[in-house]
């Protein structure tokens, strides 16, 4: 899109992307912007590892969907902690 403020942000900071589907648009957009991508997450992977949690509803996620979102959020947070602690990913 070329928004200078956003481009500066993704180029000067470490980026994590979270994609909802295998098209991986978030990852592609950061890469196309020459952003500093350090790790990509995919909801489909989290779903594969948590088959008991079946997300339903788009306007309002069901409780299993919210639990799945929490699982992924914790994975992302763990990665943020590793980065902050200077550990390799």
């Amino acid at each position: 899109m070329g928004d200078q403020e956003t481009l500066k942000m993704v180029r000067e900071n470490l980026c994590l992307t979270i994609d909802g589907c295998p098209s991986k648009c978030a990852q592609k957009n950061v890469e196309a912007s020459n952003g500093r991508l350090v790790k990509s997450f995919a909801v489909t992977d989290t779903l594969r590892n948590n088959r008991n949690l079946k997300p339903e509803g788009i306007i309002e996620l069901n409780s299993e969907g919210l639990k799945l979102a929490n699982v992924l959020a914790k994975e992302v947070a763990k990665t943020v902690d590793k980065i902050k602690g200077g550990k390799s990913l």
Partner: protein
Amino acid sequence: MTMAKWKVGIVSCSGEEIPEGTISRIATRLVLEKLRPDETVTICLPLFLAGGEGERTFAKLFPTITVDGCEKRCAKIGTEKYSGKPFATVVVTDVLKKCPNLTLKSRDELSTEEWEFAEKVAEEIAERVDEALRRQNEQLRSEKQ
């Protein structure tokens, strides 16, 4: 002969940083699922920007309505850049000006007032959908004559 049914594509803001982004997405879903389910489809903005040919072709052939959370108008600019001028643009911050007592705060779980506001935005989008289809039908009628 099977006639292709006209659909209107809705391109929503995908911004997570501000509550207006959440309102854009929920209002869009309300239109897609409740208000105009048979007349609308959604176009994924990140996929559109990342080079999704299907999305870009659809937006070239069918009318689109962009729903932007803020004045940056990324959905509108992206649609214009890769496909063509959208039929209409709804900007959440513009609709918010009509509700001076409301302050949006939530980025995940909306309050009752925020839900009502999302419904108001959805109604504005639905009105634009009706206008787009009316225009499309008028055009088809004049081409037949």
